[in-house]
Structure formats: structure tokens, C-alpha cells
């Protein structure tokens, strides 16, 4: 991806400052309409989802007590996977955003909620709500863009190490919750120097994470298998499977939010003195939606409405689908691209970008079946040669 400011065709050049502010006002009005009508049925919605999730988890775990019987294993594992996905996505993520704080229910509140995720709620709220949602897609400010661990921008110099990036991305997907925890701890940065490693805040943070991982692992890999008695091993495998399924699913959904081709990124200097309207506009172009059924929206925690979520991170998730037509209309009237596609397409697009940028700039686009041998030879030279060779070949 190339930041919007460096693009030859700026997708917002046609909007005047007044038009941008007007757009912000319209979005404020949409927000206010939701606030004014928010009430009993919304509260009933989240309570129902929580209730269903808890019963589903309990039921699935009960079925897994007999997991030596293969159909029971399958049923229990599917149920547990779904329960874990609901718990992380529609429930945990959205409660921790403060979407349900207005109910004043101390049991469903951003300040008291804890979730089934390696990253403790407190740490995640800082890195996600504060950093990612405020500095969405600003290069150098929003770590969610993945600069720390991947090549995500043509302007990042290519190195052979990036050839392994698809594999690395897949591994990260399997262990996604630990990746998130490491990311919230800023592990890379904080392990780099002795001073940072011994910083009491960092030490307290990683101890908190380790404690949480220990409790989660004890529950999933020891207590519940032990409760299954003779089904210890199948139940253990069921828990591993459910956690990996949940990780792969949430990784896919989250990749779809900001990573598909065509989502805009921004230069750090571009947000200096940013107005409310400009902030909205950055969120509009910096997110991508997943189209699909109601079940799809529920299972993605309504992050399928990533655009609406980024515009209004604190509105109840069940309302995103309802305001989406209005938001979409606003895009159309302002000549902006409402980035929306079905899940397979968005996942493919995001993975395409991972592959494309794992290779030298232009390599994938230039490669055809006919010139493949020559292109492979070039890639081989660039991989085995030094920086000089790489520079010469990529310039050619």
C-alpha cells in the first residue's frame, strides 16, 4: 500500500474543506439518531447474545465430556469454536469498546469486562481503542498496519527475509491471540534494550499476560480434559482445535478490516491539526466491510461493518447494519469508494497483498507463464545476491 498523500490520484482531491466538514456533520447526525433511539431492545440484544454464548459454551463442554465418541467430539468442538468466536468478537471486543457502557450494568461494562484472550482487557484497550482507533492507518502511529513484523508498503525496502512473510502471516493467524498479546506489550520494542526490558511497567505488563495465559491454558488444556476422565486426550484436542479455529477466524476478519487492496493509509504529518470531518474521512477510506448474511455479521462481531465501526466505535454493534445504508449513501454522494466485498474475496485480497509485498516491487504483476523462468532466475539472484545486486535488478 502507498499512503494516500503519495498517490498520483488522490481519492479525496475533489472534496473541499467545507464538504468534508459537512460530511462530518451528517455523520454526527447519524450517531445522534442512534443515541436517541438506543434502548431496551438493544440491551435485550446483548444480554441474549451473552446468554446464548454461555449456554453454548457450557453445552459444548458438557458434550465434550464424552469426546472419545467421535460424533460428540465433532459436535462439541464445533460448538466450542463458535462459542469462543462469539465471546471474542461480538461480546468481548464490543463491550471493551464501551459500546454497552450506557446500560450502566456493572457486569457488562468496559471497565469490568475480561475476555478469553491472552491479552488482558486493560492492555488491549490501550493499544486497540486508544492507538489503533485514534490513529487508524497512519503509518508510524498505527501498529495495526503491521510494519513491525511485515512488509506492507511498496516504500519499505524489499529483503529476501520477506519471502517468508506468507508463512509468517499464517503462523501468526494460528496463534493470533498470543500475537495480539505480544503486540499490546510492544514486545519487539521492549525486549530490544536492557533498560526497556527492566522497565517496571513492562515487567508488570508481561507478568499480567503470563498469568492470564497460564489460567487460560490450565482451563482449556488441563481442567476440562481432566473432567472428561477417559476422554482426556480428545477433549484436549478439541480445546486446541477450538482455539486455533477462533484464532484463524479472528485473524481473517481483522485482516479484512484494513488490509484488502484499495484501503487507504496516511502519512504521519497528514493528521496534524486534523478536524473532526477529516478524522471521519480517514476512517471512511481506511476501512473495508465484509458483505454477507446476519450470521456472518454476528460471527465477525459486526466487524464486517468495519467502516461503520471505525466511524462510531462506541455505538452498539447491533446498530451498524441499520445505519449502513445511510453511510453507504453518504459515500456515494461524496464520490468515495465504500469498500465492501464477501469474506472470501476480502480474505483473498488481503492475502494477495501479503504475497505481492513478500516479493520485490512489481515482480508478481510482471510475471506471466511465459516469462516465469526468467522472473524466477531474477528472484533467485536478488535473494542470493547482496544489496547492490538487489538495487540494480529492481531498478532494471
Amino acid at each position, binding site marked *: 500500500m502507498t499512503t494516500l498523500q503519495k498517490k498520483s490520484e488522490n481519492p479525496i482531491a475533489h472534496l473541499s474543506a467545507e464538504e468534508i466538514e459537512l460530511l462530518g456533520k451528517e455523520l*454526527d447526525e447519524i450517531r*445522534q439518531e442512534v*443515541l436517541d433511539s*438506543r*434502548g*431496551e*431492545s*438493544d*440491551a*435485550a440484544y446483548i444480554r441474549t447474545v451473552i*446468554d446464548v454464548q*454461555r*449456554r453454548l459454551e*457450557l453445552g459444548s463442554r458438557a458434550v465434550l465430556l464424552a469426546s472419545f465418541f467421535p460424533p460428540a467430539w465433532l459436535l462439541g468442538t464445533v460448538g466450542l469454536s463458535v462459542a469462543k468466536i462469539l465471546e471474542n468478537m461480538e461480546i468481548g471486543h464490543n463491550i471493551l*469498546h*464501551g459500546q454497552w*457502557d*450506557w*446500560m*450502566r*450494568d*456493572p*457486569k457488562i*461494562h*468496559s*471497565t469490568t469486562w*475480561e*475476555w*478469553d484472550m491472552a491479552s488482558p482487557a486493560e492492555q488491549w*484497550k*490501550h493499544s486497540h*481503542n*486508544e492507538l489503533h*482507533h*485514534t490513529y487508524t492507518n497512519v503509518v508510524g502511529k498505527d501498529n495495526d498496519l503491521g510494519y513491525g513484523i511485515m512488509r506492507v508498503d511498496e516504500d519499505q525496502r524489499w529483503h529476501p527475509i520477506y519471502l517468508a512473510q506468507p508463512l509468517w502471516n499464517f503462523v501468526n493467524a494460528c496463534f493470533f491471540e498470543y500475537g495480539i498479546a505480544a503486540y499490546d506489550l510492544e514486545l519487539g520494542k521492549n525486549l530490544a534494550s536492557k533498560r526497556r526490558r527492566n522497565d517496571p511497567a513492562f515487567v508488570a505488563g508481561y507478568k499480567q499476560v503470563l498469568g*492470564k495465559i497460564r*489460567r*487460560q491454558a*490450565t*482451563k482449556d488444556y488441563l*481442567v*476440562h480434559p481432566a*473432567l472428561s476422565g477417559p476422554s482426556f486426550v480428545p477433549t484436549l484436542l478439541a480445546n486446541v482445535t477450538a482455539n486455533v479455529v477462533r484464532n484463524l477466524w479472528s485473524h481473517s476478519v481483522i485482516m479484512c478490516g484494513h488490509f484488502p487492496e484499495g484501503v487507504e493509509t496516511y502519512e504521519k504529518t497528514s493528521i496534524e491539526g486534523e478536524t473532526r470531518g477529516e*478524522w471521519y474521512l480517514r476512517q471512511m477510506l481506511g476501512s473495508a466491510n465484509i458483505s454477507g448474511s446476519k450470521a456472518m455479521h454476528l460471527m465477525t462481531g459486526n466487524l464486517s461493518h468495519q467502516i461503520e465501526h471505525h466511524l462510531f*466505535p*462506541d455505538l452498539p454493534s447491533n446498530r451498524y447494519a441499520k445505519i449502513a445504508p445511510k453511510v453507504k449513501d453518504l459515500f456515494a454522494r461524496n464520490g468515495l469508494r465504500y469498500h465492501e466485498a464477501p469474506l472470501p474475496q476480502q480474505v483473498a485480497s488481503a492475502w494477495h497483498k501479503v504475497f505481492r509485498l513478500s516479493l520485490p516491487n512489481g515482480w508478481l504483476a510482471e510475471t506471466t507463464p511465459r516469462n516465469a523462468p526468467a522472473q524466477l532466475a531474477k528472484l533467485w539472484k536478488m535473494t542470493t545476491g547482496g544489496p547492490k545486486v538487489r538495487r540494480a535488478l529492481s531498478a532494471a
Partner: protein
Amino acid sequence: MSTTVKPSRPTRPVRPVLAALRDRAVRLAELATTPLLPADYLDLVHPLRSGTDLRGRVESVTRETADAATLVIRPGADWAGHVPGQYVRVGVDVDGVRQWRTYSITSELARADRCISITVKAVPGGVVSTHLVHRTRPGTLVHLDQATGEFVLPAPLPAKTLFVTAGSGITPVMGMLRNHLAEPSDVVVVHSSPTPDDVVFGAELRALAASGAIRLVERHTRTDGHLDAALLTELVPDLAERSAWACGPLPLLDLLEEHWATAGLGTLHVERFRTGVVVTGEGEGGTVSFGRTGTAVEADGATSILDAAESAGVLMPSGCRMGICFGCVLPLREGAVRDLRNGELTVAAPGDGVLVQTCISAAAGACDIDH
């Protein structure tokens, strides 16, 4: 001016060994439910059990007058009982938002079903009272605190008592009358209401009067005008000999307190319901005090509490500073704040459990922030 009687609370016998065993079992169960608690699952099926947050289930709603109703509530197993005259804080979800209000308990102690009752008068514009009187159905779960309050009768009862009440102020007194009338005492009740039909428990009070258990003086303010000191002395000539309890609107209580003080009468026990939060006009702001750090800041109505506090040197939690990250949320113990984005007002009384985002909230009156 207030009572010196300490209500004795019936307590449950505690068996330490059993309690320790239960604690250990709960800790073991937590290993299987983390990050949730076993209670989170048990609450799904048994919200009134012992050991969980105190709740109650509305068993019945009975209309008393056009705008008042009695709710019979089955309290959770940990309910510690009450002393007649005491009140209970009730948390009700109205339009999805948890609201806490205080109501006097009106039931008899010896109820066979161990339920309690509260009697609610729908106040015009009252979000919670209107909801409880007109829209609450049997089966609804409400949240409860333990009963509390010092507005109770001493034991033994004084030989002569006087109750002065108005409107829903009759409710704690009804709680006392229903439980203490078996004891010999000379009781006078002076009750004010707009019309005879508006008297909450009207039929019951009149029946008590007819049976000679109490002397009832009904005042109907729409035709008779409001009660004053001279009138009260006239209605109850032996005022000085009576121990008095009063409950009703603030002007009435102020008037009585003043009369008791100037006339040098005995003890007057008063029960004041809800001292209203003072809300200032848009843009005016107020004093924001931080209970735990012991600082107070003058904030205008256009500055966020976060900014005002920080410029006064208070260390505040903060995040995005634009109302999206919820990193600055703090409890508003008491007071009123206005949302700087849309002018929406949030008002809190102690115990309401209201949390506000300090980065987009400005003071709209005196505020007490728990920080």
C-alpha cells in the same frame, strides 16, 4: 433532629467451616470458568441464590391509586431483613439503562412467603417511578441493596406518637403501622394529599381509624390548602407530648423542623427522600471535586472535566481525548455532567454506579468524581 435508635439487623448464622469449604469449591470452579466466574454461569439459572449479587423478582404489581402501585418483591437468599420504616435501594433497567431509586418497605415482617413490598407513586416525569407503576410486569428481575435507614420506631414504643406525612411520605409510616399496631400506643396520623382518591393506602388507613387503632386526620390540599404549624397545633393539641415522625416533600419537612425548633418541642424524626442534584445552565459549569485525591477544581461548562482537572494538576487517566477509546472513564459519584458533543445531560446520585468519559464531559453543576 434525627433518631438515635440504631436498627438491629437480623443476621444469618455463619458457619465458618462450611463457608471455608464453599470458598475453596468456588476457587476450584473458577479454574474451569476463567475469565468468567462460576457465578456468571449460575446466575443464568438461579439469580436469587445465596452468594451472588442481591436481586429480587417482582411477584405482583397491585394498583393502589391512579398513579401508585404496590410491588411485591421476592428478595434473593442473602436478603438480611429490614426494620419497619427502613428503605431499600432498587435498581431497575428502564429503556435499557440501570437506574437506582430508593423506596420505603411497606410490607409486614411476618409474611409467610418472605417477600417484601414497596409502594411507588408515579411522579410526573419520573423515569423510574412511572416505569415501576405502569410498565413493570410480574417476573421482572430488579437489583437490590440491603435495607437501611434510621427512620424507625424505638422499642418499647413511646406512649404517644404522631406521624405527619404527605403524598408518598405515607409509605415508611405504613410499614411501621402494619408491624407495630399490635402494641398498645396512642397513634395520630396527619396525612396530606391532593384529593381523597389520591391517598395511598386510603382504605386501609380509614379502616384502621374506624377500628380505633389510630386517629387519622386527612388533609386534602386541593380543597383544604397546605398544612402549617398553627393548623397542626390546632389539629393535634397534645403535640408537645408526642414523639413525632415526619415524611413528605421538603417544604413540609422544613416547616415542621422549624416549628419543632422554635416551639422547643421534643424529638422530631424526619425522612427526606432524594435531595435533588442542582443542574446549572448550559455553559455554566460547576465545582468538580475528586474524592480520593482530595482536590476540587472550578470548571466552566465548555471545558472537559479531564482538561480542567489536568490544568489544576490532578493526575487523570486519559486516552484518545475525543470520546472514542473509553480510557478516561471514571465514576461520577454525585452531580451532573453535560456531553460536550451533543449537550446530553447525565445526572448521578450516590450509589447509582454512573461512569462518565471525562474527556467529553463538562461539569453541569457540582460534581463529585471518584478519583
